[in-house]
């Protein structure tokens, strides 16, 4: 399978690889996927308490090139967004931006799940009401 140049670019130079201190109250962590399925994404956000804006985002991903590119792109998009705007990121935007083929759409779904899970974790830690569907994400 040939990858798009954008996937290759993110794969070679992944943005925001790393780990944030999950014990911090303003850090939300989302861990989605399973080793048995061949994809695990961990996405973290650090939120500015005063403004509600995501000031930093980091990821680590076990998976194929598309999974790594999807999570790398997600961290880029998250930085500078408000938490509420971040929730609006749709997996199909990732598919479009990276030109993912149909067989790799699940990678973008996983990235969207990771974003939602990280935000849900952040909200839970900070006593912000979480909508029912987010809580299970």
């Amino acid at each position, binding site marked *: *399978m040939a*990858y798009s140049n954008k996937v*290759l670019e993110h*794969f070679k130079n*992944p943005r925001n*690889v790393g*780990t944030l201190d999950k014990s911090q109250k303003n850090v939300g962590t989302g*861990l*989605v*996927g*399973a*080793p*048995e*399925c*061949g*994809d*695990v*994404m*961990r996405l973290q956000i650090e939120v500015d308490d005063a403004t509600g804006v995501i000031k930093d985002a980091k990821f*680590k*991903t*076990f*998976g*194929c*090139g598309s*999974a*790594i590119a999807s999570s790398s792109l997600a961290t880029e998009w998250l930085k500078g967004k408000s938490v509420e705007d971040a929730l609006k990121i749709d997996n199909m935007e990732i598919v479009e931006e990276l030109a993912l083929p149909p*067989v790799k759409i*699940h990678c973008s*779904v*996983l990235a969207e*799940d990771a974003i939602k899970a990280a935000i849900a974790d952040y909200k839970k830690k900070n006593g912000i009401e979480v909508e029912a569907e987010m809580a299970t994400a």
Partner: protein
Amino acid sequence: MRARKIYLDNNATTPCDPRVVEAMVPYFFEHHGNAASRSHPFGWEAEEAVDYAREQVAKLIDADPKEIVFTSGATESDNLALKGVFEMYARKGNHIITTKTEHKAVLDTCHKLEKQGAEVTFLEVKNDGLVDLAELEAAIKPSTILVSIMWANNETGVIQPMKEIGEICAKHGVLFFSDATQAVGKIKTHPRELGIHLMAFSAHKMYGPKGVGALYVSRKNPRVKVTAQMDGGGHERGMRSGTLNVPGIVGLGKAAEIAMKEMDQDAVRLSRLRDKLENGFLQLEEIYVNGNRENRMPHVTNISFKHVEGEGLMMTFNQEIALSSGSACTSASLEPSYVLIALGLGDDLAHSSLRFSLGRFTTEEDVDYAVQAISKGVQHMRDLSPIWEMYKEGVDLTQVEWSEH
């Protein structure tokens, strides 16, 4: 980037040896005749070339030239053997025994035969990939007509105990067929000596051209017959109609001749290089070699790089080094290698596996470069991997509640 790309995927296909190409060339234009044209020299020349190739192939596997049926490749040979025996021996029974680690050409053919009334037993294999002989023998019953077990596995290189299987088949009077695609031309494969009655193989796995292969069909003690699956002009003694692929067959013959002369020295050289490759990777942490390491092909190793996903890993070097992964992501199905799963590997280790298959044209420099480049790729991917980080922190990964999707 290196000027020359490194090819470590010889189990997928081998390059065609230039000596083979040279032997084939005259049969495209100069001697272009149809081997079935009996009435003029063009046909006679072609027939002579086919007869000569048949002898070369027969010599390699210590068979009678009349026991060689030329086909389009191993998939066709597998189909002809299984379907041909099932039809021909329908009155004797309908039970076929095979294993879960066979090539798809065997498994899918067996599934089709099930729809046509065959009963098929798919044996499990042991954790090292070998067939359990007691289990095999216990599976044989009065309706059993055929045991189909591959000589060497394409993914792991594991070699089955062919002699012992042959003895079991002889004891119970059932036919023994082997898909020997990965073994012929690389190790000694003499079917008669081991009690194998039918054997499939292909030219393009032994430095010959693609699109040509053969089925060995025993002619005496016992005389085995298969029902043709391709009807037409009655070529190949009625077992496989269709104009013979003369240049391809000449190529298969030449490849067999070269293999006979060179396979021993190739095997010694390649097993040394394979071990060097393997030992290079074993310097890293959490590396697992899959399958039996004693009984396996000299040029193959299958390795799991734990906590790294195979396809992602391959992307770090696939512009320069070609090989295959047992990861789901290389296939459309998203299922990881069924062969590795049958060996009892967890899905996670199957997703983390790479298959290295060296060949006649692999150099020591290739191996050294591959170890260095791939080790670097493993490090890169582990730096990116959340589960590697968790493993390093001492998290018990089996206790994590994963959100399976």
